[in-house]
């Protein structure tokens, strides 16, 4: 159980944290025909866009209300209105997901009021869904933006079912946390379908940002869960929320539509996957498919093979809270020690992390605490620390801009955990210290001067 400490520095050096609105934007990207829109200056949007493009290596839908200095002072109604009109006309978006930024929050723009006014002024836009989430940059972080956005989407777009609705027993809603990649979602879909369910992911990045070649070019999000599917989520029989920050969304769905939910704070590793599978068995009343049984034994085997390499290893880790908790717990279960722990903002889940303390800080802190570790785990910005410390970096989280396949890294399910063990263990193997003559004592040859040298032979 960790003590969560808040850093005391005035200046963040090499930030670990990313801003809240881009977490919100990413959630909107998991919905079909949607266009995330930042209410703020253009630069914030441009940075978010570049970040995602470099991570996913895909065209990214993201728009801005382009607030100028003057507009910022006067308030942004006109910009919001124009942006909505333009996006509806040009991009044919069906959902516009608006996230506020630091600039417009500092001014105090009342976007909800703007939206009602737009609704009055533009009846022709009635069938375009508008969802607004307040996500100031100067508060919280990426994960929180995602959390609020998913909850808001449910609040605004899910239809309340009839009181006596016959729940669709096959329909299973999955509310994935921001840490799960398109690869993770596909793995989960595969597992869940194995139990006869028809899962619906909200948001569904696997369908939108998994790098598939689209059937047609669209400027909005490419795939993802549709608005109709979202509206009809209310008659689902089951809901599974992944990651503690998805509790809010799950509760919202329960309150609104009476869908019961089960929250999984962890998804990575043998025991968490067992718990997940056990739940699916229970609610489906079905046998576990043969292939999943085989996958489990493969994972067990991988753990046996891997533990030689992972046991006793010291890990320095910098991730957002929920991901931190999940991944670090898995590594601890593989015999690793988390000796340096940095996260972005204080949330209760961090207290459950199995290490002495977690610091709310940046990558400079991680670099300082991580000296002498065996492995560094954080996003791609850890590369500088890795170089300086001569400690290998295992890239996890977002952004990963200097490696390919970030969207396909899979950690969940028996298969995901199996591959994760291989990948991490292989890094240890590649960087293993090989014994040298002087590993334990100064090598005799070096002190040879004072001894009768055996090499002198005339």
């Amino acid at each position, binding site marked *: 159980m960790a003590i969560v400490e808040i850093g005391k520095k*005035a*200046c963040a050096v090499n930030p670990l944290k990313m801003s809240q609105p881009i977490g919100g934007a990413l959630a909107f990207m998991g919905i079909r025909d949607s266009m995330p829109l930042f209410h703020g200056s253009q*630069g914030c949007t441009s940075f978010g866009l570049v*970040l995602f493009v470099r991570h996913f290596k895909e065209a990214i839908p993201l728009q*801005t209300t382009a607030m100028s*200095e003057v507009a910022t002072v006067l308030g942004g109604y006109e910009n919001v209105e124009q942006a909505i009109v333009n996006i509806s006309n040009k991009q044919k978006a069906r959902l516009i997901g608006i996230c506020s930024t*630091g*600039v417009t929050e500092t001014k105090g723009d009342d976007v909800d009021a703007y939206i009602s006014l737009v609704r009055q002024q533009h009846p022709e836009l009635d069938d375009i869904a508008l969802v607004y989430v307040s996500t*100031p940059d100067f508060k919280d972080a990426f994960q929180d933006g995602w959390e609020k956005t998913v909850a808001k989407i449910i609040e605004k777009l899910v239809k309340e079912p009839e009181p006596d609705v016959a729940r669709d027993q096959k329909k299973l809603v999955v509310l994935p946390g921001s840490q799960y990649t398109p690869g993770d979602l596909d793995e989960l879909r595969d597992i869940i379908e194995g139990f006869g369910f028809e899962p619906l992911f909200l948001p569904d990045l696997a369908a939108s940002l998994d790098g598939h070649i*689209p059937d047609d070019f669209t400027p909005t999000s490419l795939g993802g869960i549709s608005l109709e599917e979202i509206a009809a989520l209310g008659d689902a029989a089951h809901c599974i929320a992944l990651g503690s920050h998805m509790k809010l969304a799950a509760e919202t769905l329960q309150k609104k539509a009476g869908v019961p939910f089960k929250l999984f704070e962890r998804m990575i590793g043998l025991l968490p996957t067992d718990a997940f599978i056990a739940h699916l068995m229970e609610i489906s009343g079905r046998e576990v498919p043969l292939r999943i049984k085989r996958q489990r034994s493969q994972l067990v085997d991988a753990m046996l093979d891997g533990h030689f390499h992972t046991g006793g290893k010291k890990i320095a880790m910098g991730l957002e809270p929920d991901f931190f908790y999940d991944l670090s717990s898995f590594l601890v279960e593989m015999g690793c020690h988390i000796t340096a722990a940095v996260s972005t903002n204080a949330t209760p889940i961090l207290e459950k992390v199995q290490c002495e303390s977690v610091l709310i800080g940046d990558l400079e802190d991680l670099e300082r605490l991580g000296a002498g570790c065996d492995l560094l785990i954080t996003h791609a910005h850890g590369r500088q620390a890795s170089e300086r410390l001569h400690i290998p970096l295992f890239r996890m989280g977002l952004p990963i801009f200097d490696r390919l396949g970030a969207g396909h890294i899979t950690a969940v399910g028996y298969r995901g955990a199996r591959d994760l063990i291989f990948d991490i263990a292989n890094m240890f193997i590649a960087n293993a210290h090989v014994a040298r003559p002087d590993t334990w004592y100064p090598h005799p040859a070096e002190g040879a001067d004072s001894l009768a040298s055996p090499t002198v032979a005339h």
Partner: protein
Amino acid sequence: MSSVSATVQDVFNEPACPKNAAKSEKERKKGCTKQLQPGGAAGGCAFDGAKIALQPITDVAHLVHGPIACEGNSWDNRGAYSSGSTLYRTGFTTDLNETDVVFGGEKRLYKSIKEIIEKYNPPSVFVYQTCVPAMIGDDIDAVCKAASKKFGKPIVPVNSPGFVGPKNLGNKLAGEALLAHVIGTVEPEYTTPYDVNIIGEYNLAGEMWQVEPLLKEIGFRILSCISGDAKYTDVASSHRARATMMVCSKAMINITRKLEDLYGIPYFEGSFYGIGDMSDSLRQLAQLVIDRGAPAEFMDRVEAVIAREEKLAWDEIMSYLPRLKGKKVLLITGGVKSWSVVAALQEVGMEIVGTSVKKSTKEDKERIKELMGEDAHAFDDMSPREMYKMLKDARADIMLSGGRSQFIALKANMPWLDINQERHHAYSGYKGMVDLVKEIDKALYNPIWDQVRTIAPWQNAADSWQAKADAEAAREAAELAADPAKAEAKRRSKKICKCKTVDLGTIEDAISTGALTTVEQVVDITHAGSGCTGCRGAIGGILEGLAGGPVVELTLEERRAVKICNCKDVTRGMIEDAVHAKNLTTVAEVTEATNAGGGCTSCCDTIDDILSEIVAPIAVAAE
């Protein structure tokens, strides 16, 4: 904030900017800032631009004063290389929280500077203002001043909050910060007659290192490069150089001009992209130092290096000729760094679809302009399906463009190479041009293309999205053919002015209702052409079209006196004479002979027109 707006106005008044000189007082005040479209695509902010321009100074700590968005989402994502310190890649930010926003962030800023100096002890800290602290009234100038005094180090405020404008404005504001606080504050240990500044070069992907060794071999001393691979003291002592080369872009023209005004350092605008441009730049730089007292023989050293390097480069490039000859390149960019890139491609026998195609008709020209239009705009306005159609219609083998369009090209299974952005490959100087050709060859001949274009075994060719897109396009075309009114509406909806979003119909209507005859009238009434001014040629064309001929008939002499190249002051007559006298056939040759097209390159199209007018009849006569 008032000081920022004053600086912004100052920057807009830049007299050495040719675009600016052509504007009226009122227009100038509006600045080069394009009207931003809410719900249009987003470019970088002024803060982004300032950071891009200054971050390459490697030993300085770059501290961003703002909430996490500005630095947290963007740090260490710019590809400037360093030969020494890596401090510039460290992300520093005050990461303002809610309390700071309420009570002000100045204290946190001051403490941050203190922490940085204690931990990293850099020669200077640059403090970047961003939107939120600008709104709440944080006075970074005052904080920097106090900190400079307290810590005995230059702490430089860079007043460029994102919302004052786009990236290019930020570049200039960065220049202003250097002028106000850095340049001229340190005297170099010694000077030589060969001391030069290179301004506007950021050493992206190490491109400066493709050039620097040659400059050194010739005998130049680079006193300071602003700001690629620079050290703080270099920049601070740049006022003692003998000459300045301003690298192509206008981004840092304010520094260049003020170095001339205040310290009498002459400059020229040159480019390291392309073989011809590289050689020209070396010569011009040498000429400037010779003019200021360096021995005239210095030029011989320059020529010797040029001769050697050009030969090496051409030999290598020509070895690709058999593989590249006849391949079609679709060039989509406003950012072709230099026309001589095009020349090099043509030299290896590649056909450029969409640029100076010889003997092209007027319609071709229009199409080319469309293809070549400022890329960001062109692509934002184009639906991806239209873009696919364009790729297909062009029957190109490879597309060269800026980064934005890559996904379309790749998803259309079209080989693609990024020539705007030097993040990954350096294309400067002689070696760089060889590398570019090499990269094109690599992209074009990669065996994946045939594979990815095959359809899956379970798929019907007619079901592929390509086929669907084609069918859709054919359907639309048929629809337009069948419905003249719709076709007319579509024709009229064509966007002419991309900055101000004015379409053809609006302009035509304005001309006929107002009986307009000059481009200026059209600009005044419709605002088309009042942004980047790039579409004024097209407006002229529309006027001509409606008037049923050229607007004003010119006499032969008047016609010969028309200035074609504004940068280098070259008239039509001069170009025509040169073409006749020397039997010139390509734009590059004309540029070589007359200098026309050697500046901003925007007149190259016109030069090509002139060429096709002259060259075609000659060819006929020769038969």
